[in-house]
């Protein structure tokens, strides 16, 4: 019986007990394959739904389709799987930073289905974030199945996310970098190796099933110095566009959040509005990969005004879809908006200086995508590698780097955190490894408790107290009630020093009279960050910890520093 069951606890095998790297690589392959299959499943079903709905697009009432889809997706999330709306990436980062990557099993499919409904029906959103969430949840649940520890689980969550991106874009490096830069926020070899393996597995599965094709292949570009210089302008424009998108989504979220109707009604309303826009500008509907294709190929024929309008409308449609409660990510819309922006920039340049020989407009569309992605995600590395890989063109790397980095820089001026992590940073939940906040969150009051204080009773004479002082190592004495044992106050040796050397007081003073009753106390489950704030405000170095009205121990900055340092050392991952 025991031997039969032990396969579920591979971490206990002798082979893996001392070094889990091999184990992680094995499981990473499994996670990579599963996560990649989930991504392909979503992709295939999106294509199926799109082609199934295609005949209806021409009919005048087609604008309700996105509404129905969004409503269904919202109902599915709310009633069937009991989850909130949103794209899910913050949830992944949250669980990675606070709970060692523990995620619910339902997360591994809920967003897939809901985003499929939203996007398939025409809502303007991307399938990437839901796929990332599913991949991460798959990784987490596989780790749970094998009873792995937190560090290994986090690695597998990263594996799932990496494999999802790798698989959907056929871009292994971008997957790896996305996972490290956005999800884990940590570059260490212990994580890099399983994630790399998972990326490879994910990409390979997708290549076997989907064929090895570059998502947006293009013609050869000739880029000279002049083109690189004008990239600066493009970087600023894409930064502006990504800020606009961020703000719009937030605005719509606030607007719809106040609407006094059920969630699915809001989603339906948002969806119908998108549908209406789609009637006149079908390019804004869906994830929009087709239009990106056209733009990079340089066959997108419309003029400057139309392109600018399309960029704005796509922003509007995306914020309507996501803000009203539709399910999906911003990755694909970013790519579309980015290519519109790039194209518009190119058209503008041609209008202004028709004599200069600009590079093909497809190149600018591509740079625009990089600019928008790096602006929204504030993750320039991901943007650079993703664009290089999905376009298969290394020759654009120089302007690509410029646009990505500068766009990120500008966005950071205005938005303090990326779109994915904004909510988390605002609530103080973004706890990257080896940061102050992370260390303080991991430590808890129980671990820092100093229990070597000697408690005294309130009706004790000063004379008896002197004998206790002789025995004690500490300068603090908690005063307790005789009967209930409740904490009443503290005696600080510094405060009562004058009385200690006055034998006349020995039999005249009770401890209850000289104790300090206005003491700042903390509870066992208080957050260390809050405790430290209180200490700083009141210039304290230690505080008594009181649990259920009883004195539990002291907490002091000295012990904290000791443990803090150990924690920091231990967090170093190889």
């Amino acid at each position, binding site marked *: 019986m025991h031997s039969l069951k032990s396969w579920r606890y591979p971490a206990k095998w002798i082979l893996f007990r*001392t070094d889990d790297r091999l184990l992680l690589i094995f499981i990473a392959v499994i996670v990579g394959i599963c996560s990649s299959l989930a991504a392909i499943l979503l992709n295939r079903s999106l294509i199926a739904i799109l082609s199934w709905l295609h005949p209806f697009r021409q009919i005048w009432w087609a604008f309700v389709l996105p509404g129905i889809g969004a409503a269904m997706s919202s109902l599915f999330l709310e009633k069937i799987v009991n989850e909130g709306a949103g794209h899910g990436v913050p949830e992944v980062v949250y669980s990675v930073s606070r709970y060692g990557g523990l995620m619910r099993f339902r997360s591994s499919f809920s967003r897939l289905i809901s985003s499929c409904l939203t996007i398939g029906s025409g809502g303007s959103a991307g399938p990437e974030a839901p796929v990332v969430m599913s991949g991460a949840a798959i990784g987490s649940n596989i780790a749970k199945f094998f009873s792995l520890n937190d560090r290994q689980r986090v690695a597998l969550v990263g594996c799932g996310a990496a494999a999802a991106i790798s698989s959907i874009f056929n871009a292994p490096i971008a997957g790896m970098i996305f996972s490290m830069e956005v999800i884990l926020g940590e570059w260490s070899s212990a994580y890099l190796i399983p994630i790399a393996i998972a990326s490879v597995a994910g990409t390979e599965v997708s290549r076997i099933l989907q064929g090895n094709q570059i998502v947006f292949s293009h013609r050869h570009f000739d880029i000279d110095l002049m083109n690189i210089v004008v990239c600066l302008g493009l970087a600023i424009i894409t930064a502006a566009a990504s800020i606009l998108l961020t703000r719009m989504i937030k605005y719509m979220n606030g607007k719809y959040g106040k609407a006094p109707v059920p969630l699915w009604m809001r989603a339906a309303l948002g969806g119908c509005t998108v549908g209406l826009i789609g009637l006149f500008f079908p390019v804004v509907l869906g994830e929009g990969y087709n239009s990106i294709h056209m733009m990079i190929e340089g066959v997108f024929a419309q003029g400057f005004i139309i392109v600018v309008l399309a960029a704005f409308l796509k922003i509007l449609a995306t914020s309507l879809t996501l803000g009203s409660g539709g399910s999906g990510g911003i990755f694909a819309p970013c790519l579309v908006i980015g290519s519109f922006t790039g194209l518009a920039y190119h058209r503008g340049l041609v209008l202004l200086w028709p004599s200069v020989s600009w590079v093909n407009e497809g190149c600018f569309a591509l740079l625009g995508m990089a600019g928008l992605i790096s602006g929204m995600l504030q993750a320039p590395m991901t943007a650079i590698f993703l664009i290089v890989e999905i376009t298969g063109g290394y020759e654009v790397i120089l302007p690509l780097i410029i646009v990505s980095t500068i766009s990120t820089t500008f966005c950071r001026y205005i938005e303090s955190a990326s779109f994915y992590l904004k909510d988390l940073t605002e609530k103080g939940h973004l706890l990257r490894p080896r940061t102050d906040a992370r260390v303080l969150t991991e430590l808890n009051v129980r671990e820092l408790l100093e229990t070597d204080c000697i408690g005294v009773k309130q009706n004790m004479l000063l004379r008896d107290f002197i004998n206790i002082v002789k*025995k004690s190592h500490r300068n603090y004495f908690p005063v307790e009630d005789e009967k209930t044992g409740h904490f009443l106050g503290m005696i600080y040796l510094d405060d009562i020093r004058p009385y200690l050397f006055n034998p006349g007081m020995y039999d005249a003073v009770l401890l209850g009279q000289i104790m300090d009753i206005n003491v700042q106390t903390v509870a066992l489950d208080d957050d260390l960050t809050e405790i430290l704030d209180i200490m700083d405000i009141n210039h304290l170095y230690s505080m008594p910890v009181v649990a259920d009205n009883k004195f539990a121990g002291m907490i002091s900055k000295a012990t904290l520093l000791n443990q803090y340092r150990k924690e920091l050392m231990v967090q170093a991952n190889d």
Partner: protein
Amino acid sequence: MKLAINEIAKYLDLPVNTVERWIRQGKIPVHRDGPDCIFKKSILKKWAVSRNLSFTLPKNSETKHPGIEMENLLPAIKRGGLIHNTKGDSVNAVLKAAVDKIGMLSADAKKELYERLLERERLTSTGIGNGVAIPHPRTQLPEVKENASITTCFLEEPVDFSAVDDKPVFVMFILLSPSVKIHLRLLSRLAFCLRDESFVKFLRTTPDTDAFFERIAAFEKQIDKTDAL
């Protein structure tokens, strides 16, 4: 190796809660197996060193100076012994005579001790009043390594020690100790005895060895009971 979690915590000098959390988070190369923890000693040691943590298994940590806390007055006084009728009419002379009679020291050490005692006397007199002096070297003698000793010397004639109360000294306790901590402990215990007027009176009778030891033992018991020192 297999150990309970609180033992590991003890050897790592960490709270149990922390070790528990580290195992769960996979930050420490230890596996949980029910209430026990499984680990490989060499790997855990290497890990501890690289994280600046101490990891000592019980063998090394338990043999840590057992006797220090237990050094008491009576054994030290027994060790030092009693010297009656110490001759001399000045501080230097009585100290010289007393040091010569201290049993367990070598000739060189005696010379050094004498010089150090004089040096200490020059700083301030060790006559603490009531005719009692506690001469001691300011720094520890290299030859006194393990056990402290108090040699009680009754003087033939009271000597002017320029004590705090200017009373001539009739008894000296020469205090030799291996460390400052023990020195202070013995000094404080001795002082506790000498605070008692009746004890000083008793000393003036130049009691014999057994009666003296008995008296000290009684005091020691009293001190241990109140646990004041």
